[in-house]
Structures are given as structure tokens and as C-alpha cells.
């Protein structure tokens, strides 16, 4: 919150950095990796929203996707496997003025980090979570991940996976206090950008699952969907994505879906015949952790000293 005078001054400031200023170095992802498209969409968002680089932080866990913070010329935290969310929560708690983004993968989020994921949804802290889902552990060269489709042959499943994959959208929608759930694909840049932008503007925990191609290890996985638009279902709504006329010519499967309709969102999430793209669910009124639980006292040096001394005194012999 800032004063109206400050807001006015900041709004009148129209300078913005070029997209190159948000780029740090050339990404070290494999040839044709879908992560490139996500990186470009995010850099475009930073430029368009004029995010100050010193006020923006990208937090990641471990995996291909988690190399993301290295390529952003902002603050970043390449953390431990599955632990991106608790670290992001800590950052947001201590520095609510920062724009917090989380990059996590299907392995990072839906396997080792599942507990954190579930509770992060429940906490509903204001952050944008991009789950790069390529259905495989790519960094360690092709092991079955929790979202690998049934029958996928990998190093850890030479005879094909035997278990049904987890559906990250259904899981997120099933957790109490979910407030923003969307799905995008890396190969439709316009909608990817729109989805990330809507997620960024949602005040709360916005979860975007991005289906991301891995041409190196599972090139066939999304090939059909990339080439055959009938495999895609676009969700449009005045409170959701706006589909351009050009895209409508290619993607004719469209549904007008009101993101406030949680029941329909669950049905869409469970679809198996087509890939739904758009905002499945949005509830701007879900309570946020930072609003319902906040410290009464400021963490001033004096206060911290007093509290610490009180604690130390307990151990005085």
C-alpha cells in the first residue's frame, strides 16, 4: 500500500526497460526446449509490467525448469529439490513488497515437493507459480515423473510406467482455498503470455501448469497436440483469456468457461480427450495467509533483541 501521491508519481513514470535488460545469459537448455518459450513470456511480462529488477525474485527447486532464475536478470534463488515453495513463502512473508515467482517442474512439485505444494495452495500467499510440466525428469536424463503418462518407457520404467499419472490441475482444485488455477502450453505463445499475465495480476497463489515439450527425451509426447489443433480446447471468458481471431481460425474447439465455476473447472481439469488451455478457476476473494496472519509487532532491531534475550534468559543457569 502506498499513498495516492506516490501512486500518481509512479504511474506518470513511463520509462521501461527493454526486454534485453531482463535477460542474463543464453539459456543452457537442450535444442528446441519448451522452456525457452516460457522464459520469453516471463521476460515479456517483466518488461510490460515494468517490474523493477531489484523488486523481483524467481525461486526454483531442482530440475531443468529450475535453471530459470539463472537466466533472469533479477534476484533469484535456486534452492533445494522440492523446496521452492517454502522458500518463496519465507521471502514473501519477510518482504511482501517483492514480486515472487516460482519455477518448478513436475518432478520437483508433484513428487518430492508435494507436501509443500498442497500447503502453499492452502496458504494462498501472493505469488505466481509456473509448473513446467514436461512429464519427465529431464535434467537427470529421462526418468519417470509423477505426471508421466501410462506406458511411457523411461530409464526407471523400461517396460513402461504402470501407474496412472497425477493430474496437477485436479489436485490443486481439490485443495481448500485454491484461488487461481490455469493451464497453458509452451507452443501457443500468445495464450501462454496472457495466462502468465493473468496469474501475475491475481492477488494470491496462482498456479499455472505449463505443458512443456522436451524434444530431447520425449519428443513424441506433445507432438500430436502441437500439430493437430483439434486436440486442444481453448477456454475463453470475459474474466478469462481473450482468444484472437487468428487463433480462433486455427483452434476451433472453444468453450466459454466462467472461471468462478469450480464444479465445471474440476470437470475440465479431468478431461483426457483434449488439452484444456485457459483459466480454469479464479476466486479473487480467497483469504490470503499474509492478510489473516500477520505479526502484531514490527520486526525492529530492538524488538528482535528483546525477544531473543527473553528466549536466552530461559536457558540461564
Amino acid at each position, binding site marked *: *500500500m*502506498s*499513498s*495516492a*501521491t*506516490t501512486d*500518481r*508519481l*509512479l504511474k506518470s*513514470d513511463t520509462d521501461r526497460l*527493454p*526486454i534485453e535488460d531482463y535477460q542474463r545469459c*543464453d539459456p543452457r537448455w537442450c*535444442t*528446441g*526446449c*519448451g522452456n*525457452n*518459450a516460457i*522464459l*520469453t513470456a516471463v*521476460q*515479456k511480462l517483466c518488461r510490460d509490467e515494468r517490474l*523493477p529488477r*531489484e*523488486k523481483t525474485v524467481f525461486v526454483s527447486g531442482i530440475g531443468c525448469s529450475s535453471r530459470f532464475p539463472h537466466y533472469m536478470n533479477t534476484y533469484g534463488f535456486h534452492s533445494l529439490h522440492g523446496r521452492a515453495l517454502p522458500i518463496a513463502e519465507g521471502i514473501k512473508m519477510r518482504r511482501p*513488497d517483492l514480486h515472487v515467482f516460482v519455477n518448478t517442474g513436475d518432478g520437483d512439485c508433484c513428487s518430492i515437493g508435494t507436501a509443500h505444494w498442497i500447503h502453499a495452495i492452502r496458504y494462498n500467499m501472493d505469488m505466481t507459480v509456473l509448473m513446467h510440466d514436461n512429464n519427465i525428469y529431464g535434467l537427470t536424463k529421462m526418468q519417470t515423473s509423477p505426471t508421466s503418462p501410462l506406458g511411457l518407457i523411461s530409464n526407471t520404467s523400461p517396460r513402461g510406467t504402470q501407474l496412472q499419472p497425477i493430474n496437477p490441475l485436479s489436485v490443486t482444485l481439490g485443495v481448500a482455498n485454491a484461488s487461481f488455477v490455469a493451464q497453458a502450453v*509452451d*507452443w*501457443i*505463445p*500468445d495464450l501462454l503470455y496472457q495466462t502468465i499475465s493473468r496469474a501475475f495480476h491475481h492477488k494470491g497463489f496462482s498456479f499455472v501448469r505449463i505443458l512443456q*515439450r522436451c*524434444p530431447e527425451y520425449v519428443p513424441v509426447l506433445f507432438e500430436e497436440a*502441437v*500439430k493437430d489443433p483439434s486436440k486442444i480446447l481453448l477456454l475463453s471468458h470475459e474474466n478469462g483469456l481473450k482468444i484472437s*481471431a*487468428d487463433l*480462433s*481460425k486455427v483452434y476451433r474447439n472453444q468453450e466459454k468457461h466462467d472461471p468462478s465455476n469450480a464444479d465445471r473447472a474440476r470437470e475440465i481439469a479431468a478431461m483426457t480427450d483434449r488439452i484444456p488451455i485457459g483459466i480454469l478457476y479464479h476466486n479473487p476473494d480467497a483469504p490470503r495467509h499474509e492478510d489473516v496472519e500477520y505479526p502484531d*509487532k*514490527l*520486526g*525492529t532491531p*530492538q*524488538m528482535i533483541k528483546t525477544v531473543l534475550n527473553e528466549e536466552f534468559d530461559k536457558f540461564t543457569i
Partner: protein
Amino acid sequence: MNKTINLIAFNLIGKTAESGLDDISGLDLQPALYAGFTDLNKLRHDFPVVLGNYDDAGSFARSLSAIVNDILKKNAPQGSEGEFMRCQILNIEQEIRENIAGSAGLSLMEAWVTATHNLRSRIDNNLLKAFDKCLEHIWGALKFDGQIIDCNAALPIAMLRQAWAIDQRKKAYASRKRVDELILRLEHILGAEIKKSKETLSPNSLKGSVGSSFENAFDFEVMSRVLTPANPRDRLPEGRRQRILDTLKVLQSQRFFKSAKWSQKKSRRAGPFSFLFKSAASALRAIESRISDMVELIRVISIAELEIANRYEPAKHDAFFAKFDESSLLPEDLAFFPTYLIWLDGGPKGAKDKARILKLLSSGMPVKILAQNEDILDSLTGSKKRLPFGDKSWQLANMAISLNDVFVLQSSSANLYKVRDKLWDGLTYYGPALFCVFSSGDLNGPGLPSYLVSAAATESRAFPTLSYDPSKGPDWASRLSISYNPQLDKDWPVHSFSYEDEDLQRLSEDIVFTFIEFVASDKRFSNFFARVPRREWSEAMVPAGQYLEANSDEQGKTIPYVLMVDENHILHRLVVDDRLIRAARRCREMWHSLQEMGGVHNSHARNLLELERELWQAEKDSEIAKLRTTALADSTTKISDQKAAPSEPETPDEPEQAQSVSTDDPVIETPRCTTCNECTDINPQMFSYNDNMQAFLADLSAGTYRQLVEAAENCQVSIIHPGKPRDMSEPNLDELMERAALFH
């Protein structure tokens, strides 16, 4: 005939002696409709209310009845099982209602204890055990407490002050937190600078920061030598450091909110300002003396926020803040400050005071003024020959509404509980608010409860309830609400009244409660009425409500009366002075204009509707006439001929065809590019990225057809279409074109 002349004589000239009618000053008469309300303590109504001191905005006031209902709903078993509990609790409620009449400042808990004690002493011994058990159960359920107050002259300020205190507390908490956070963050900026200083990195300072346990484990001289050159050289510019220090000084010495202890330690300074005033003049003086402090505080808050966001640019912002003055304050920024509560007991005192109120209301400051009026009929008294009406009571609210951005609530104290949400809205409205409240005092004689008089003022349109909330929208329809008035589409409310006649037969009639009935209840106006003995009642006498509705011809033939009851519940008719009739007419006219503004019987809307109806009718008439002519002309032609002309086939709503692009030209579908660098790696001159980091053909001549085909093959999302070669002399073209054909 003679008797009628007497009545007219009174009606027109008001002289009791000449008209031969009875003076009523010695009689204890009340309007007939008051008969059912002689003992309000026996009736469950909105009062007394309990003023709760809770942060929950909606519960600053709850009526005793609502609290009791809530307790019973949650605790008393359904059906006959819970009957005993319901009876006892309702008895307690009535006991409290009777007890609080004579005592002030009691809390609900205290009143409850006294009431149960009194009841217990009167209860039958056989029921004592059950009574105690019931009380024990209910005591635990009694969660809501606070001062209990009846509908009296102290109510308006008590209610408003309670809500104000809650709002003020919440506001102070948020604003203080904001100021303290700014202080902390600015100190962080300075702190980072200190950590980089030579002093901090000196061997002694480093030794001190390690502590005594491990001081022998380090060589602090070496540590200092290692750390000092590694320290980044960027220092806080002196101008910025000074600006932060100046900002901190103002933030730490502000007096609008009591600051947290840690920021207070540094200076012994004056305590926080007070924001409660009892006159417009003192409030105005306070605001005028504080305005420069307010401007300064908002100025430094903005500077602090820009500094913290790292967006303060001296070249841009220095000039702006140098000229920052009172005129730079935005309404939203003013809302940051505590609200001024100004209680004008008795309303404005004279023209000067009115001018001050106007000045306060148009200042844009968050001022909340309670203009409490104990007497809305005072302009009828005195020696004035003319009887003006409503000058004082209505003028203030009308004046405030005309300022456009002032929140206005007008209500009698009896209605105040019903409009408590509006009261809260007014207090939390970011700009100025005026609350005009009529709360009956003892002016009109003892005996009549304050609640009854103020409720009657609303009922008789003498003091209608209205709220004007500028935050609700841009037009009158959304801003002005008169919905809290009874029977708002009527001139006067109508109530059914039953009584027995001389033959003990039950009779019932509708009584209109007009302004005249309201005045008739006031002893000070007894000379405007005269009692007509029962034997002289005639058909020429009509109820005042009916008389007011009649045209002047009919009025000439009739005499208005009001129906009154005495202490023995005997009905009397009082003939009314014509001057009062004129005052009542004026009251009705003012009510009409309020109705219009509130959207009831709006003349503009009615005229527009009439006009539209006429236009519609004319259009329909012409259509019908045309149809008739056509039908006549076509009666000889065949029906098939009429159908002969086929309608033009509609152009299908096909999507616009894409402009035909020759497959000979190479193309990249740029919007679908996923930025994988494949093509730009092949030839960065030929393929380039646009501002959105998506590939396009930058320079075809910078590369070969082979590179174009290879790029198409490498593109992960197949958006490069190589077309036909431009240079036909390029080697292996046949093979390349065959490969390219896959991407056309």
C-alpha cells in the same frame, strides 16, 4: 349552523374565547394512535441498545431484543421444553428495560445481574431450582457486552462515538503500522550503509561482533584487511542520505498517531493530537493549525515510499516535492489521517456557526459532524406571526447535500438503530460526513417517552430519514436513499385504529398520521387546537389528513380535526388552527420534493414515461393503419405471390479469408515462435528476434536457401515455410526443394 360558524372562526382566527370552544391546555390529550404505546417498557422494540466495543464493524450497536433473540435461538430447546427458559429470559429482558430507565452508564452484564436478582426475589420457591439452572446456562451464552442505553438525548453521540472509536482504533493501527514500517525500511537503507563503513570493518568493531567466546580464533587485523578492499565502493549519495534523515525526522515526530514505543524513545515530544470537538469553531482552529503538519507528513510518506522502492529521482521529484503544499493533497491521502468527530449539541448556533460548519464540510477533511437537535418545532413557537416550518431541521442536511461530496445522514434517534449501517458508512467514508439527528428532549412536556416523540417525527414526515452517500455512485438514484421512511410512496402513513363506541360496539377506521398529529402531541402548541364537545360533532368535520388532501372548494365546506385520547382513553376531536394546516402543507411539499429526489413519484420520470407512451402509441397506431391499407390492397392478390420474393441469402459469417500468400515466398509465423534459438543459431543475420523475442525473417539475402530449409527442419513448432529458392544457381536445389515441400 351557528356551531359550524364557531368552528370556522377558530379554524381561521384561532381565538378560543370568541369561538366558544374548549381550551385544551389543561387536558392531557395525545394523538389517538399513541394509545397503544403508553408503556413502552412492556413492548419489545429496538431499544435499549448495547454498545459493543468490538473490532467487528457491524456490532458496535445491538439491540437488547436482538441479543435476547439470538440467545434464545441458540440455547432454548424447541417446543414446550424450552418454554420455561424463553419465559424467564423474556422476563429478564423486560426487567432490564424497566430498570435502565432510571440509571445511566450500566453495562449489559451489570443490568443483567440486577434484573436476575430482582426476578429471583419474586419467583415462586418451587421454580427456584429450574430458574437458577436456566440462568447458569444462559450466563455462559451471554457473549456480547457493553454500555446499555435507551433512546434518549444521550443516544446519538453515544452510538456515534462508539462507532467512531472502533473505526479510529482500526485506522490508527493501520496508519501507525505504515509509518513505523517506513521508518524501519528507511533505517535499513542507512543501516546497510553503516555496515559498509570503515568503522564497521575496523578490527575492533569486527572483534566486538564476534563476541568474547571465539575472539582468540580470529586475527581481526587480517580480517579487516581482507574485508575492506572487498567492500563494494558504491556509497549512498550524500543528497539521498540527507533526504532519508530528514524524512525519518518528520516520520518520527508526527503527532497524528501514537507511535510505537521504539520510535518514541528518541525524543521527548508532545503527545498525540485530540480529534474530538464540541464546537465547529474549535475543530476549525485545530484543523487550520495542523494542516501544515498534514501536508508535511504526506509529503515525507511519499518521499519515503519512493526511496524504499528505489524510484526517487532527484531530477524528476525534487521540484515536485519542493512545491508540495495544501493544494497537492489528494482526498485519498487525507483519509490516512484520524477523523475529527464534532458534536454540535443543539445544532448550529447562529449564522456564523452555520458558515463554520459549511467551511468544515467543504474542506475535504475527514470531519464527521453530529448536529443533534432536541427540538424541530421551535420555529413554530415564539412571537412570530408567520409559522415557518423546518428551516432549522432540514436546512443543514440540504445545504450539506448541495456540496455534493459530503456524506449526509438525517434520522431521528428512534430510527438510529435501524440506520446503524449507514452511520458506519458515513464514519468510514473518506471525506466529510454530516449526521443530523433529532432526539427529543423534555421540551414538549413530561410523560411522553423520547422514543415515541422521535419515532413520531419520522412517521409524520416532520423529520424524514434520508442518507446521501457520494461513494455509492455518480447519480441521485444511487446516492440518495429514503427507503427507511414508513410507507414512502404515500403523503402520510396510514394506520388502522380500533375503538369502542358508546354502545360498546367495536369500530375500526384508518387514521392518517400527519404533521398536525405530531404537533398536537406537543403541549406547547395547545393554543392551535380546541376541543369540540361530543354533542357538537358534525359531518362538516373531517380528519386533518382528509382535509389536507381536499381541494380548496371542499376545504371551504369542512373543518379539519385531529382525533385525540385522554388519560382515560376517551376519544376527543380537536379542531385545528388554519396556520397549522398551512405548516402541514409546507411539510408535505418538502416531503414531496424529497420523494422526487429519492425516485418516488418523480415528475421528470413520469413526464418522460408519458411522452414515451404517447410516442409508442402513435407508432403503433400508424403501424396498424399501414397494415390495414396493405391488407385491403392485397386482398385480391394471391397469397403465393406474397411469398414469391425470396429473401436475399445471408452471407455466411465466415471468418475473413487469409490474404493469399504465394507459397513461393518464405514465411515465418512469428506469433507462434517459442524462442528456441534454432534458426538464429543457423544464421543470425537472416533470422532475427523482434521486440517480443519472436523470430522473423530479417534479411533473406543474408543467407542461402539451404539455411532456410534447415531452419524449417529444425524448427520445433514447424512455423518456418521456406517457399521457393530465389537464387536458382544455388547447388543441390532439387534436393532442397524436395525437403522444403514438407513445410509449404
